[in-house]
């Protein structure tokens, strides 16, 4: 009996709070028919926003992968002064509100910030353009890859790497042939999370993007713009794209969880 009530309550809560809103997105997007939806998606501004979002994400991804793997390797395999501090610093973006994060970047890299002012005479502008979007996206996604790779490295242990050392492999060979295959599943999941978050970030990006129509509008910003312009179909149509991405993320998570190696017997 308790079991039944608890399950029913959980389903009700999740249905009302999580599932219904997602259904509402698709409902509203198609409220004016499929043709209106098609037209909304193919709107040049929406397409430009999609393109910018994809470009920004593709720029953030390699940055985050290189950093995440490098940090995980250093933290998992070595003891050094400041190891704990590094771990905490990587987790900070998790606790910082997106608007505060955006403000932080503006205050240091903006035209009036110490670093921004230093670069301005050389004609280098970091905020209110693609660079700014990439920088804040790197901030909000900072812990994702490291967090997935670190536990995998901890579980696999260093024996295979030491074996490769005794067989004469150099650093790159050890990474390419031994480490990378071992961390591939965790890395893949970290990449998926980073992509999802980078494409969807709203608050931090809205502070530093400058919101120039057709130029620095990422898809989430475009959604806000259309929504405030009373273009509901346009806003919800664009939202379906991001919702579909979120659902794909969840499916990938499920796939990686099911087929990825759990804790393989040590060979």
């Amino acid at each position, binding site marked *: 009996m308790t079991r039944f009530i608890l399950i029913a309550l959980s389903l009700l809560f999740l249905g009302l709070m999580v599932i219904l809103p997602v259904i509402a997105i698709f409902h509203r997007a198609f409220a004016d028919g499929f043709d209106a939806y098609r037209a909304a998606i193919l709107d040049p501004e929406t397409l430009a926003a999609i393109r910018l979002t994809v470009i920004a994400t593709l720029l953030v991804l390699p940055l985050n992968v290189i950093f995440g793997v490098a940090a995980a390797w250093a933290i998992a395999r070595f003891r050094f002064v400041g190891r704990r501090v590094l771990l905490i610093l990587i987790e900070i973006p998790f606790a910082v509100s997106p608007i505060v994060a955006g403000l932080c970047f503006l205050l240091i890299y903006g035209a009036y910030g110490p670093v921004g002012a230093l670069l301005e005479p050389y004609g280098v502008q970091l905020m209110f353009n693609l660079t700014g979007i990439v920088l804040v996206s790197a901030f909000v996604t900072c812990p994702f890859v490291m967090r997935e790779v670190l536990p995998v490295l901890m579980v696999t242990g260093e024996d*295979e790497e030491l074996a490769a050392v005794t067989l*004469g492999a150099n650093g790159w060979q050890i990474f390419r*042939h031994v480490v990378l295959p071992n961390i591939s599943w965790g890395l893949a999941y970290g990449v998926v999370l980073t992509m999802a978050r980078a494409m969807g970030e709203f608050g931090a990006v809205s502070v530093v993007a400058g919101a120039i129509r057709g130029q620095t509008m990422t898809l989430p910003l475009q959604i806000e713009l259309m929504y405030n312009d009373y273009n509901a179909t346009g806003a919800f149509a664009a939202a379906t794209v991001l919702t579909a991405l979120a659902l794909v993320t969840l499916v990938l998570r499920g796939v990686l969880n099911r087929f990825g190696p759990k804790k393989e017997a040590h*060979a």
Partner: protein
Amino acid sequence: MTFQALDIHKSFGDTEVLKGVSLSMKEGEFVALLGPSGSGKTTLLNIIAGLAHADRGQLLFAGEDITRLPAGQRHFGFVFQNYALFRHMTVAQNIAFGLRVLPRKSRPSRSAIAARTRELLEMIEMADLADRFPAQLSGGQRQRVAMARALAIEPRLLLMDEPFSALDAQVRQSLRESVRDLQRKAGVGAIMVTHDRAEAWALADRVAVMNEGHIVQFDRPEVLSSNPSSDFVRLLVRADAA
């Protein structure tokens, strides 16, 4: 080619694990490091391999000082206690790894690597299992792959850390023979860490008995039996004879 360790000292934090160990061996000799856990034998082996570094002391190989030489440049084959096979590579790929990672100018051709791998697979009698992954092998098979992988680089010295400890008694017996056989065929000197007296006796030309960071006696098994230098050695030698 001769190998010598001179006055090796090593501490971890406040614990002194090796308190001045010296050891010298002849070409092609099979030496066992025998002692209870905590006697420092694994640490000594790791220092010889270059997987740890001595605080004090010197390592000489064929007269060359290798104390500071990185592990990868020593050309010593190492068989890990848990074998440490590359789980994402097949048996053949595991064995070929040491040849594939050689710098281009000294790397054998693709076909030469394949031929050498096949030769080693036949030597360990696993030619039919070349495409298996480590997880699909029995403990004894893994051990043989680990041996073949270490021998593939034609090492100047073969180092083995408790190579039989993960196996059950029956497999252990039969593998002893094949390990000694492989080592003779390769014509390479070997150092094996073990805590099992019978294993040391069966395999080694000479046995170095270790206790609390010292080598207490280093001699042929029959000499250790007939002429133990201390009560510790006497007890160790008799322990499983009784």
